[in-house]
């Protein structure tokens, strides 16, 4: 073993090599997986649209139907959505586009390990690539929905604020949160299949708790709840930048962004520690 790279497999190895070496390994593994992440991403993309008649249209149909329902409920007087400052459809489509990045990302990531099946149990490869590549699909849909959003803004003659140029930067926190939660949820789904079902229910529920299809409540239970909803600010922040040109709650956004980063790094490490165990338990 004088030359060449020697790989050691032993129990509790991560603990033996120490905290810093763990992070180093995690980063090296991720960097090495770039090509694989890209390939898996392309695979899922090709497969998805080969099998579907309407293809990319689904990325648009989904938010349009949701917004359609809310517009109807609003005009029928069933719901009283307060003043949004801009036409409701514009307000809703911007919020939903950002929210869907999270919602579709979470559900894809949760399925990433279970869906890979024999790959996980029969081949040794960096499993982080499954989680990262699954997020890729929701980024593609996000792009498609952005085009839809631009069209709707044009139709309603709403000019986006200058700060729209910060949109890519401002969605980073919600991406980190999505991937971070994706790490833990993909592991959990590997052990308990219930997670897959539960997650679609929870994201729907969360969507209504988050001011996406309605403006942020200023008082009452909803306003109190909002303070403790980290996703809310991560959706509201980018939306503010697109429509209004300034953050309505900059401090809230920063705290939420910090929370998202912590979630990402904590669960990334958990994933690293658990990924060898998951192959035995899936």
């Amino acid at each position, binding site marked *: *073993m*004088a*030359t*060449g*790279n*020697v*790989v*050691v*497999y*032993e*129990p*509790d*190895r*991560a*603990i033996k090599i120490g*905290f810093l070496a763990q992070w180093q390994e995690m980063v090296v593994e991720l960097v090495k997986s770039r*090509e*694989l992440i890209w*390939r*898996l991403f*392309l*695979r899922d993309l*090709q*497969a998805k649209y*080969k*099998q579907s008649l309407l293809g990319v249209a689904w990325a648009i149909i989904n938010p349009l139907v949701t917004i359609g329902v809310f517009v109807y409920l609003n005009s029928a007087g069933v719901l009283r959505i307060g003043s949004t400052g801009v036409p409701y459809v514009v307000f809703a489509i911007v919020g939903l586009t950002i929210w869907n990045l999270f919602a579709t990302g979470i559900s894809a990531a949760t399925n990433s390990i279970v869906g*890979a*099946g*024999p*790959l996980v*149990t*029969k*081949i*040794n*490869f960096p499993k982080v690539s499954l989680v990262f590549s699954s997020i890729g699909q929701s980024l593609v849909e996000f792009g498609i929905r952005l085009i839809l959003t631009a069209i709707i803004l044009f139709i309603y003659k709403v000019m986006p604020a200058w700060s729209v140029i910060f949109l890519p930067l401002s969605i980073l926190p919600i991406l980190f949160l999505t991937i971070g939660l994706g790490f833990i949820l993909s*592991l959990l789904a590997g*052990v*308990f299949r219930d997670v897959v079902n539960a997650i679609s229910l929870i994201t729907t529920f969360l969507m209504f708790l988050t001011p996406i299809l309605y403006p942020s409540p200023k008082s009452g239970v909803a306003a109190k709840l909002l303070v403790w909803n980290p996703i809310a600010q991560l959706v509201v922040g980018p939306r503010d930048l697109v429509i209004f040109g300034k953050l309505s709650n900059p401090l809230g956004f920063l705290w939420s962004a910090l929370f998202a980063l912590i979630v990402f790094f904590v669960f990334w*490490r*958990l994933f690293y*520690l*658990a990924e*060898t*165990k998951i*192959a*035995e*338990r899936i």
Partner: protein
Amino acid sequence: MSSDTVVSVENVSKKFSRTLRHVMMYGAADIARNMLGLSSRPQVLRNGEFWAVDDVSFELGKGETLGLIGPNGSGKSTLLKMLNGIYMPDRGRIRVKGRVGALIEVGAGFHPMLTGRENVYINGAILGMSKAEIDKKFDSIVEFADVGEFINAPVKHYSSGMFVRLGFAVAIHSEPDLLLVDEVLAVGDANFQKKCFDRILDIKKSGASIIFVSHSVSAVERLCNRTVLVKNGKMIFHGSTREAIQKYFHESSQNNLDKVQSQTFGTGEVIFSDIFAYQDGGNKHNANIEFGQDIIIEFNYRFLKKRNQNNQIRLGIRTFDGRDVQKIFFHEGSFPDGLVYPNEKIVSLGDQGTCRIKILNPRLFPQTYILDIAIAPLDMDVHLGGISNAKAFNIVCLNDERRYFEYGNATVTDFDFDVEVFKRLQSTPTTGEPSRGLS
């Protein structure tokens, strides 16, 4: 670990849970402990766990080929998965140098909707090959897989053979320093199996080390310098391939002998007793018969009622898994047509006696065989007495310079036999005139 060691396995063990409930409970607990920087104490067995691999050690040098054999569920695949880093050992340490290629499940990760071409690139990436590397080898992969223009069709339209061929072709092109092979040669047609095997031999020649798991002992014998025999997770032998295979046969056949349960049938007018199968010139009680040696089958029969017709004794030899090998008949007098077939002899039976059948030069492939015995009137379709699974015997290949696999997998069933019948009086069971079968 010396400088040209490629794999070093030191006292490696792996535990598994018996129930799904434990799998989930222990899994969550272990991960939680690791997360807090605590050891999950993998070396201790908890309630409901067992060692699937138990204290295995070996080393493998550059260019060496190691066979891994053992009965189903003995831990071979688990060991291989640990070597590939899919499972972590719970005790001990594995060190592997260089690039590892695994033929554990070929074509895993193929997406049915995508074309062969697309899947080659994806599978290559999963196996750690770069795009440039796959570009370079693409034509060679397609040629080896022999899928022709189907390379541009979705793999869901592939035959299962094509699917496996393509998967194998990608895996085999990863130029590993260590190749792990798990029973993949069992798939595909004979032609492709040969091609795969030749390819593995090429890889061996190129200086790579190979660990080869297979139930095909002839493949192990051809490929491996050394072989490890595992049973119930424990390494019970490590040394020359020939010795390992002999021990493997001995182990598995002993196991088979213990499992055989006999059953009587017929009208009960005849009973059999003291049934033996042994090697000519050997101990009566040893049912392990050296490959190629004459076999003696011996038993006592006794008519409980008065005999009033010519009778026939029927002897059937089956493999352990139920394939008929040969039937032997010997009877009093000939059939009305007067013909005597090669597997028939004419003898004279008494009211009771001992039959000793000597099977000459049987080339039975080493494995376990089962005997059925019955006695019936020559021209009637009713059994006066019979025992199915009357006796099991093993053909083993101990200390044999002859390579039994030269005969191939086929059992040579056209063997000749001799039969002696010793008629006995009621009071003196072991004496009497032998009545030689006419041959």
